[in-house]
Structure formats: structure tokens, C-alpha cells
């Protein structure tokens, strides 16, 4: 029996939430131990945000190259581009390696002890990892989330989750994506651009069902142009490996049969609470219930990130992790962001920050809603992008900006400006009065504010 390891803070999970909490705790001089069962960086760095963006980049480059195959409007001629998916995946793995190694170095630099292994929770103050007992004052749960599986589509063989989809050995001939949310669409579009035939089956009546149809319209158009088949309002019944056929049924009971050599199940994620049941924490649906300080119902047991439910976003987990470390250091903190940006790296990209027009209506807020199309933005034209827009929602009485939505090529980078304006409590006049560099997509942000004030210049 090994000796008990004593620490002040024990972090379970080395994803964006857990490792940021540990680094910040280290900076604040809190003795910290981090336990990770797989790879540092968690879902985000290893099988989520980063590898998917790498794959999307590969797909876009290949797609661009192919578009010049027989000469293009840009005057580029390319002859028969070829894709070595093995090397693509190796390149992606290189990025992931560099980042996870970086995380390990940062943890070490800040004096965090990293223990590799699966933690078994004994109680709110004691955890065992491979027989090693760790005693802590504060237990931070940051176990993240995992893909939701469908009972009629058990994973294995041709049926894969996003994890396998991000490390393909070969490309499928026909990929059927089950789920028209952002993960399914990001990967579906990437696979289509890499050359596979792609179909998307979604149970609801439209894609990206959490966003309004005005916002998702440019994405739907782009999907159509890329040749991705959409089967909306279809519920999946099952998959027959022998005939390689996926069956689904629509609302009227019509059966749909799709031949598919690979099926990607992307129907959402669920908080990973297995192993935490013994703590008997208060739950909020499938997630651990936490207050504004990320405190669970048990004293000095904290929970952050996907484990605490929606919105399941890495940047939310990081902010919560940083906050919990500071709370443990005795500072007074509260998680009360004005907004958390949500980005879909579809083609075109989509950003939502703060209040949408629909939410404003539900809250009974009298709001001005104005949008500025990228069709009138010079920079967008030079990027061969004509679709999409920036939309602003502001209170009519004092012009306080309540929310931003944008769809278009490269709009993910506008999310910082959107979030910052909301955090600073900007009014339409503040945005309209800020000189935005020309020629950039950001000009559309200023113009949207100007349009809300009734005097857009370039429209």
C-alpha cells in the first residue's frame, strides 16, 4: 500500500477546463494534482475542436485545388489534385501532439503534478488512481462529455463517432451522417470536400435546429451546392452491415434506404458522470448541478465544463476552470459572462453571441434588429464569398447591444469583437463610432450597427 498523497486541489480530467484550472491554481501557489486517464487536452485537443479544424482545413485546401482543376475564374489551372488521407491525418496528429505536449509543459512549469490513470472517487476528499490514494481539500470534477450513442446504431465497424471520423484510414464512398447539428455538418462538409459522397439524416425539419432559419439559410444553400443530400424529418431505424444499408423513416411512415459504407453518428454529447454517482451530487438533468461559482451540492467539490451541461464549449470550461482556481485561492469570483460565443465551423461559418431576435421577443424586449450582407462587403468579394451577413440585436430605448449573429466565410474570427462589445456594454453608437479597418469583414459589423441606427453607408 502506497502512502496517501496529500494535495490542496485535485483536478479530475485534463481537458480545457481541467488543465486551465490546474495551471491557474499552480500560478496562485495552490498545491495541485491533475489526473487524466487518456491524453492531456481532453476531447478538445485530441478528438474535438482542434483535429476537426485541421481536417476542415485539409478539406478546404483540397476542395479549392479541385475547383481550379479545369481552370477557374481566378485564372488558376491545376491538373488532377490527389489526396493522401494518411498524410493528412499524420499532419493533423502533428498539430495535436504539439498542443498536448505544450499543455504538459505548461502544467509542469506551474508545478502541477500530473498523474496518468483513471480516478476512482472514494468520497468528496479522497480519490484512488491505480491503488494510489490521493487526499485533497478541494475536488474539481472536469470529466467532460462523450458522444451520445443511438441504440439502433451501436458503434463499431462502419458505424463511427466523431472520434473515428477525425482519424480516417481511408475515405468512404458514401458517408451518411446521422444528425444535422454543428458536429455532423462540420464533418459532413469536410468529407464532401475531401471527395466522399455525403448524406445527412436529421430527425427535425431543418439543419442546425438550435439556430434560426435566416441564419442557417446560407449554410443550407452551400450544402446543396456541394452536393450533400439532406434528409430532414427522418428518424433512423437501423443499419444492416450485410447490405450496407441504413434505413430511416419520415413523419408519414415512408421508409428511406440509403446504401452507406460508413455511418457517422453525431447526435449530440452527454455529460460524463459515470463514476461520480457515489458522491450523490445534485443533478440538473443529465449534468451535475452547479451554482454561479461552479460549486456542487457538496462542499469543496466543484464541477466545470461539459459535465455541468449546456453550452458545452471549451472556452466556457476554461473560464470556469480559471475562476474555480481563483475561488480556491480565496478570491471572490462569480461566473457571470455577458455572453459566450458559439461558433459552427461549417461552410460558411456561423457565429452566435448573446441574445437572438427570437430570444429578445420571448423576453419582451423592444429591440432593433439590423443586418448587413457580405454581398456589399469588399473583403468578402475578394474571398469569393457573397453569401452571409452580420446581424445585430439592440435595445430600442438605449441602443444597448444585446446580441450578434453572423454567417459567412471566416466569420468565426469576428466572435471576439462580438463578445467584447457585449462584455463592455457597448451601444450601437459605440460600434458605429469605431473605425473598422478596410478592407476587412469587420466593416460589416460597423455597417450593421450603422444600419440599426438608420444610416448604413454602403447599402
Amino acid at each position, binding site marked *: 500500500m502506497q502512502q496517501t498523497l496529500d494535495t490542496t486541489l485535485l483536478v479530475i480530467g485534463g481537458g480545457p477546463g481541467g488543465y486551465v484550472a490546474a495551471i491557474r491554481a499552480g500560478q496562485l501557489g495552490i498545491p495541485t494534482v491533475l489526473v487524466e486517464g487518456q491524453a492531456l487536452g481532453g476531447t478538445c485537443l485530441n478528438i474535438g475542436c482542434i483535429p476537426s479544424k485541421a481536417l476542415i482545413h485539409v478539406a478546404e485546401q483540397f476542395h479549392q485545388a479541385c475547383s481550379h482543376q479545369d481552370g477557374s475564374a481566378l485564372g488558376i489551372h491545376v491538373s488532377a489534385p490527389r489526396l493522401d488521407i494518411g498524410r493528412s491525418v499524420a499532419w493533423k496528429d502533428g498539430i495535436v501532439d504539439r498542443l498536448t505536449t505544450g499543455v504538459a509543459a505548461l502544467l509542469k512549469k506551474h508545478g502541477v503534478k500530473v498523474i496518468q490513470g483513471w480516478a476512482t472517487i472514494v468520497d468528496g476528499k479522497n480519490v484512488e488512481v491505480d491503488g494510489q490514494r490521493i487526499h485533497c481539500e478541494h475536488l474539481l470534477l472536469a470529466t467532460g462529455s462523450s458522444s451520445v450513442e443511438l441504440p439502433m446504431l451501436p458503434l463499431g465497424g462502419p458505424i463511427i463517432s466523431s472520434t473515428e471520423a477525425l482519424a480516417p484510414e481511408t475515405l468512404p464512398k458514401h458517408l451518411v451522417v446521422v444528425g444535422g447539428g454543428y458536429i455532423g455538418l462540420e464533418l459532413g462538409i469536410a468529407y464532401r470536400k475531401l471527395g466522399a459522397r455525403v448524406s445527412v439524416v436529421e430527425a427535425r425539419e431543418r439543419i442546425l435546429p438550435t439556430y434560426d432559419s435566416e441564419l442557417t439559410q446560407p449554410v443550407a444553400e452551400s450544402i446543396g451546392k456541394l452536393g450533400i443530400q439532406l434528409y430532414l424529418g427522418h428518424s433512423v431505424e437501423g443499419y444492416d452491415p450485410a447490405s450496407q444499408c441504413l434505413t430511416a423513416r419520415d413523419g408519414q411512415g415512408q421508409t428511406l434506404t440509403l446504401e452507406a459504407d460508413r455511418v457517422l453518428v453525431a447526435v449530440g454529447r452527454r455529460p460524463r458522470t459515470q463514476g461520480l454517482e457515489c458522491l450523490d451530487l445534485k443533478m440538473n438533468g443529465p449534468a451535475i448541478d452547479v451554482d454561479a461559482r461552479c460549486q456542487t451540492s457538496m462542499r469543496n467539490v466543484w464541477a466545470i465544463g461539459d459535465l455541468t451541461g449546456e453550452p458545452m464549449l471549451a472556452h466556457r470550461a476554461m473560464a470556469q476552470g480559471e475562476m474555480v482556481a481563483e475561488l480556491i*485561492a480565496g478570491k471572490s469570483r462569480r461566473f457571470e459572462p455577458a455572453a459566450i460565443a458559439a461558433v459552427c465551423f461549417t461552410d460558411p461559418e456561423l457565429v452566435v453571441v448573446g441574445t437572438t431576435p427570437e430570444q429578445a421577443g420571448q423576453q419582451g424586449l423592444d429591440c432593433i434588429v439590423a443586418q448587413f450582407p457580405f454581398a456589399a462587403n469588399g473583403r468578402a468579394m475578394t474571398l469569393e464569398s457573397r453569401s452571409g451577413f452580420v446581424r445585430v440585436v439592440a435595445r430600442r430605448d438605449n441602443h444597448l447591444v444585446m446580441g450578434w449573429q453572423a454567417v459567412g466565410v471566416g466569420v468565426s474570427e469576428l466572435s471576439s469583437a462580438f463578445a467584447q462589445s457585449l462584455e463592455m456594454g457597448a451601444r450601437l453608437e459605440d460600434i458605429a463610432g469605431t473605425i473598422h479597418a478596410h478592407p476587412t469583414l469587420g466593416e460589416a459589423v460597423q455597417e450593421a450597427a450603422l444600419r440599426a441606427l438608420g444610416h448604413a453607408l454602403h447599402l
Partner: protein
Amino acid sequence: MGTHVIKMPDIGEGIAQVELVEWFVKIGDTITEDQVVADVMTDKATVEIPSPVSGKVLALGGEPGEVMAVGSELIRIEVEGSGNHVDTPQAKLVEPAGAVEAASAVQLPAASAAVGAVQPQGASAMADAVQSEGAPAAVGAGGRYTGCAASVAHRQADEKPLASPAVRKRALDAGIELRYVQGSGPAGRILHEDLDSFMSRPNTRVGQAPGGYDRRTDSEQIPVIGLRRKIAQRMQDAKRRVAHFSYVEEIDVTALEALRLHLNKQWSESRGKLTLLPLLVRAMVVALRDFPQINATYDDEAQVITRHGAVHVGIATQGDNGLMVPVLRHAEAGSLWDNASEITRLAHAARNNKATREEMSGSTITLTSLGALGGIASTPVVNTPEVAIVGVNRMVDRPVVIDGQIVVRKMMNLSSSFDHRVVDGMDAALFIQAVRGLLEQPACLFVE
């Protein structure tokens, strides 16, 4: 229109100075006849000053805490008719901005403009008006907060306060809930300056961080004025001049308590309830017959000890503002119930600041009791120029050995202090032993 001036009245024989404790009116207020305008204090009596006329307050003659000469101008009131006052320049009197402009032609135009700028604040506190003459800039800064507040749109109850992340973090660090802070920025945004104003306000409470305790750096300055200053002076004086000698004795009050309960059972409806105090007073009265040197006052400047036939017992009483000692006069002549009801009445009057100067002075010996808070022993401070003070400690059931047996008795300590310059230890001890003898055999309190 005329001016009526109230002068500081002479409220005690031969007293030349009176302390102004509190104003109940401010410049510009309209007051009616008999309305109380101020509290003033002498010795230990606080006196209310009513206005004999109706009118508008033009000027106040001093600030709370200021010691003013009897006969000096207290307040100036504008009245219908001719008033009682012909206007002559008064150096002491501070007048509101407008009046200064009108009255003195020598003021520089710049200064007048500065004073004028203060006007929109209305009848601001006199201190502000004083500042405005010397330092208009300071008033500008001080007045800003009020000015901003007027233009601020108030948030709805459930509306989130609007503030940048830096302001939010600073507020959290300082333990301030932003929903209590008014925002002066665009759209009611809370700015760093708003936090500054909020934090510089008195009584800003600093909260506690979860998982730790915040270090507190706030402090509060309380001017020692009024009754508190009086108490401080008297206590300091007593401690400096008197050679204190304290003596603690244990008293078995089982029989006394039994008597008290019996008397209350028998008589409380018709004669009122008895506490221990009148019984203690009775014991002191009887014991003092044999110890005239203890019922005495000592004028150490004249080097004279006055032994008093009358027993005027000061009853130490806690009021809202501090310690007061109303006086039970001629305790030697009152019956048990006379003294009981008089003690109750005096304590009530003192607590409500209704005790007259007469009732607050002239004691020859003092009795101090904190009741259930009396503790085991205390070291009372002699109420000069008296030479003795008797302190009563808590009564408790204790095991006591009587005739070789442990029995439970009601025991109570008396902690008394004496002025050792004029009271010898032997006499003090004998006096307390006499009191003890009387209290332990309560029949002796009444059998002559």
C-alpha cells in the same frame, strides 16, 4: 419680513458653555412655532431647544459637537413682521450662499459665481456651503455624484447590472454587489468612477469571499462629541485623580431573594414590582449611618471632604448614546417601593433623554448593576467627586459549605471601588461587611 434670532439659552446655573449636539433643521427649512430645532447638552442633561416663532431657517450658528458660549447666536429665522433682530455683521455665523451674496458687497465676482454654482444642489448641508466659499472645486467633485444620479435610468429589479469585465472583477474583489451600484455611463453602464463613488461612501459593507476570508482595510472615524465626550472626560478625570481601591465580597442572597419573591407575591399588584436594586439601596442607606466617610464628596482642589446626611444614590444607566447616572434623591427617606418606582422612572427618563439636569446631578454615592451581565467581579470607576461606588455582579446558584454540608445557595458578588485618598481600606471593608450582614439577614434591613 424680519429676522428672529435664538440665542443659546442658559440651561444650568452658572454654566457658561453649552455643547451643540444635533440639528433637527437645516438652512431653508420652514419651521413652525414650538418645533424643536436643536439638542444642546450641559453636564449630563440634554435639552431640546424649541423655536418660539414660525418661519424659515436662514442660518445655523454652529456644528454638532461645537461648544458654544451661553448667549451666542444659535439660529437665525426669517419671520413675518419685524422680528427681534437688526442685521449686524456676525463673524461666527455662517450664512447660505445666497445670503452671503446679498449681504456682502465686497465679494469677488468669481467667488460669487462659484457660490452660485452650488445652488442647484438646493439646501445642501452647511458644511458644503462652507467649502464652497473656500474651495469651489471640491464641492464640484462632491456634488458630481448627486448630479449623475439624477440622470441615471434606474434598473428594473431583475435587470442585470451593466458593467465591463474589469469593473465586475473589481467589484467582486471589493465584495460589492453591482446591483446596488448606480451606473452613470451610457445605457446605465457602471463605470470605474461609479465604483469609486460607491466605495467612498460610508457604511459600504465589505463582504466575504467564499472559501476564504477577505482582509478588511476599511475603518470608520467617529467624532467623540456630546454625551460620549462628556463620559470620556469624566472617566479620564476620575482615573487620573482618584486612587482607586476595589474590594470584592461574596454575599449569600438566598434569604434576600426569598424575601423579594415573597414581597412581590404579596404586593406587586398594588405597590409595583421590586428588583434587587431598592433592597441594595436600603442596605447601603442603613450601613452608611455608621460610615459617614463613605457617603461623602471630596473637593480635592479645595481640600475639603463633605459628609452628607442625605443619601442621593446615583443609578448607573445605559442609554443609547452611552452611560448616564440619574440620581435617586433622599433614598434614606423613601420606602422600598418609593425607591423602586423612582429608580424605574429615572432610568426611563434618562434613556429617553428626558431627565432634567436636576435629576442628573447631586449624587453622594453610586450603585452600578449590569443585572444578568454582571459577571463575577468588576472594577467600577468612582463617580467623582463621590468617594465610593458599589457594583453588583450576577446572582448564581452555587454549592456552598454550611455546617460541613454542601448546599446550594444563591450567591452574588459585590464589587466596589473607593477613593483611597480619603477612604481607608479598613473602613471600606467594614462598610461592605456591614452591607453583607444586612443583605444576608434581610430582617435587619427593617428592624431598627
